[in-house]
Structures are given as structure tokens and as C-alpha cells.
């Protein structure tokens, strides 16, 4: 008979923020908290930008063409988290390759410093020629430790 645990919150006993889970191979364990994505967002980056669906985010800012800042609600513990930003099809610009590469601001579109803090990250989408372009449906995911 399968057992079902009904619970509202899981907290580690030894360390509140650390629970191990037996892996699929039934031998090693993995860490529940560290395996969870801590934030993600799907948004429309064209026209008036709009968040489609998200976890642990507070806002999306349109800085310029193809240039966005995603701000999260509960901060990351450090700036060394992993963040993936999806390259995105550019349905309207087939002649330019028809896709946009998602990346992060190295120096900002106007020479501003890199924005990757425990609270926010600034991302850009560019076409095959390196020009910034608005993206219709980018996806962004954060993995790492919450503060």
C-alpha cells in the first residue's frame, strides 16, 4: 500500500534548510532544497512587457529594446547562483535567422555595470547580427541557495 504524507511545510531537523532525498537509483541521495528552482519566469517582452507566469518574482522592468531586469521576491544567498535564459524564436524576423539569443548584460546596453545581484538580474536578447530585439516569450530560471 502506498503511503501518502499530507503536510504544509517541510523543514530539515538537523539543518532547517537541508533535506536529503533518496535518488532514483535507490542508493545515493540528493538534496531537496538545492534541487529546486528558486525562481522562474515566462514573459512577453514586446510592447508593454508582461509577466506570463512566475515563481518568486516581484517585477519585470523594460530597460530598452530586448533589455529586461527581473527582480525576485525572496533574495538569493549570494550572487553566484545559476541562471538560464532561453534563446527565443523571433517570429517576425526570419531573414535575420528567425531566432534570438538570450544572454545576460555584461556591461549593460548603455555601458551600465553588470546587473547580477542577489535580488535581480538584467538580461538581453539579440538577433544573429548582434542587435538587441524584443523577445515574445523568453524563459528564465534561477537555481541556487535562497538567503
Amino acid at each position, binding site marked *: 500500500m502506498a503511503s501518502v504524507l499530507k503536510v504544509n511545510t517541510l523543514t530539515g531537523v538537523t539543518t532547517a534548510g537541508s533535506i536529503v532525498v533518496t535518488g532514483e537509483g535507490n542508493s545515493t541521495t540528493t538534496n531537496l532544497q538545492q534541487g529546486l528552482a528558486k525562481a522562474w519566469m515566462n514573459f512577453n517582452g514586446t510592447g508593454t512587457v508582461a509577466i506570463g507566469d512566475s515563481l518568486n518574482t516581484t517585477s519585470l522592468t523594460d530597460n530598452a529594446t530586448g533589455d529586461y531586469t527581473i527582480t525576485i521576491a525572496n533574495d538569493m544567498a549570494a550572487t553566484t547562483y545559476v541562471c538560464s535564459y532561453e534563446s527565443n*524564436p523571433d517570429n517576425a524576423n526570419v531573414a535575420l535567422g528567425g531566432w534570438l539569443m538570450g544572454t545576460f548584460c555584461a556591461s549593460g546596453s548603455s555601458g551600465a555595470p553588470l546587473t547580477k545581484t542577489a535580488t535581480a538580474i538584467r538580461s538581453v536578447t539579440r538577433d544573429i547580427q548582434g542587435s538587441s530585439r524584443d523577445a515574445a516569450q523568453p524563459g528564465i*530560471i534561477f537555481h541556487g541557495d535562497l538567503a
Partner: protein
Amino acid sequence: MSSELIVDELTGRASAGSIAVTAEGGTVTTNLQQGLAKFWVHFNGTGTIATQDSFNQSALTDNGTGEYTSTFSNNMNNNSYSTQVTGAESGSEGISNQIGTLQRNGDYSTSQVESNGFHANSNADADNQRMMVNVLGDLA
């Protein structure tokens, strides 16, 4: 002393699909269900395409050169889920600058997502030996 819980299934008590997990810092909580990947696949998109490993995928369809459809076993709740696609060329026989991305004008629905292998230099679809797709979002 460590404590061990042996269980087959976790369900939220107040809301079946929502369980909070105390985060690494020991203060705030994050959401278990929303932090879990709801779909992922690694497939070979060359020749007769083949799924290498996957989670929550019922079918993988070859729509043409560099064009693929992954059908979910359990549908997403909406089409606002977040997707990541990565692709790589065909080893030593491949051509450089191939990428994986979402399919241009492709289906992005609650039941399936279309991915695309693309060669940037030639501006054309291309089969990728390694295609990887993962999805985060809400299940129906």
C-alpha cells in the same frame, strides 16, 4: 540524530498541490511543486530520432529537418510555462554554430512544445545530435 521519513507520495495538507519547503538560509520558504521541473527530455534529433531519457513525455515527433514536437504525458495548466532548449551539433561530423531553441511559430501549448535545431551560419534548420528541453511551470 537524523530523522528519516519513508513515504511514496507527498501531498499538501491545506492545498494538495502546494507544499512549502524551508530554504537553505533557514528563514524563508520556497514552494516544492513550483520548484520542480515538470518536463525534461534529452533526445537524438538526427536520422530516426530517439529519446535518450525523459520525464513526463508521451511522444517525440520528427516534423522535418531540425523540427521536433514533444508531447507531455500530464498537461501543463497554461501556456505560460518557462522553457529552456539547448542543442549541440552532430559530433565530429557536425557543423559549428548549431543551436537549440524553441520552434519559430511553433506550438507552445498545454500539451506539447516544439523545439528547433538551427544552424546560425547558414540560417537554416539543422538536425541536432543532442537536444535538451526542460520546462518549469504549473501542471494542470
